[in-house]
């Protein structure tokens, strides 16, 4: 999704993203996740003076304090405002910790409320659909499942990368290519 949006993007359009990962769930706090989005916008547009000032101030206090959510949100909204459009793409939202996810969704809702130029793309497993609808009642939802062609392409790639090709022959390959897509379509 990110690559498609980037290819379409004109000058004033920013595409930023985030990958949630259950293996580092606790390290992906709400401020870290939103901070990562802000970081990409800042990397793209340059570090403005008010961000440098906030950093310098934070550095002097208590050996360098991190940003708290309200301050971070203020800076983030300010970074989004001048852009023509901002696409925020968040992958595998279901892999974030539930308490962080709630806060993240609430923050995204706040961004949408004040930033008519913001668009949000989310992926995740179906069980978080309720949480998303609760936050964004009109969210457009697309169920994703692989097509037969997708499955065949994937199988071919895996067979081509087989590390033990001596165990494979044309007949077995043909069997696999027939049986697995058929099996999946019956599921």
């Amino acid at each position, binding site marked *: 999704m990110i690559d498609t949006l980037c290819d379409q993007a004109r000058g004033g359009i920013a595409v930023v993203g985030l990958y949630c990962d259950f293996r580092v769930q606790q390290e992906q706090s709400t401020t870290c996740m939103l901070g990562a989005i802000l970081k*990409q916008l800042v990397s793209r547009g340059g570090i403005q003076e008010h961000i*440098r000032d906030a950093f310098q101030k934070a550095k002097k206090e208590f050996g360098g304090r991190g940003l708290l959510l309200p301050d971070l949100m203020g800076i983030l909204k300010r970074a989004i405002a001048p852009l023509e459009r901002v696409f925020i793409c968040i992958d595998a939202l279901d892999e974030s910790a539930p308490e962080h996810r709630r806060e993240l969704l609430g923050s995204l809702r706040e961004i949408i409320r004040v930033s008519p130029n913001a*668009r949000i793309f989310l992926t995740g497993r179906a069980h978080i659909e309720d949480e998303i609808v609760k936050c964004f009642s009109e969210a457009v939802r697309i169920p994703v499942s692989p097509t037969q062609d997708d499955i065949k*392409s994937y199988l071919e790639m895996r067979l081509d990368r087989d590390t033990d090709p001596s165990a494979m022959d044309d007949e077995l390959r043909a069997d696999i290519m027939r049986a697995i897509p058929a099996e999946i379509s019956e599921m």
Partner: protein
Amino acid sequence: MSSGRQWSGNFGSFNVNSNNIFNFVTEIDGEAHQILQWLSPLEPPKQHQDVRIGRLDGVGNWVLETAEFKKWSDEEDGCDEPVLFCYGNLGVGKTYLR
């Protein structure tokens, strides 16, 4: 960096010439580096590069052809619903949508 884009409905190809996904600060002075780290230790652009490398051409591109996606990505300010949610089981390829 905007040159050489391969758009024109050629969804199935893997001609990813635009590398402006996340424009890193090119001349990172010491302070800029510290500020970026202060904003967040996470590095989504690195993960994104892994996703690009692992992507299989054309798989899932039908999503990008849906009216829902086109409307969401094209619409001007003040669109009715700025949120798009793609959902499905683990391993169906949501992460690898191009």
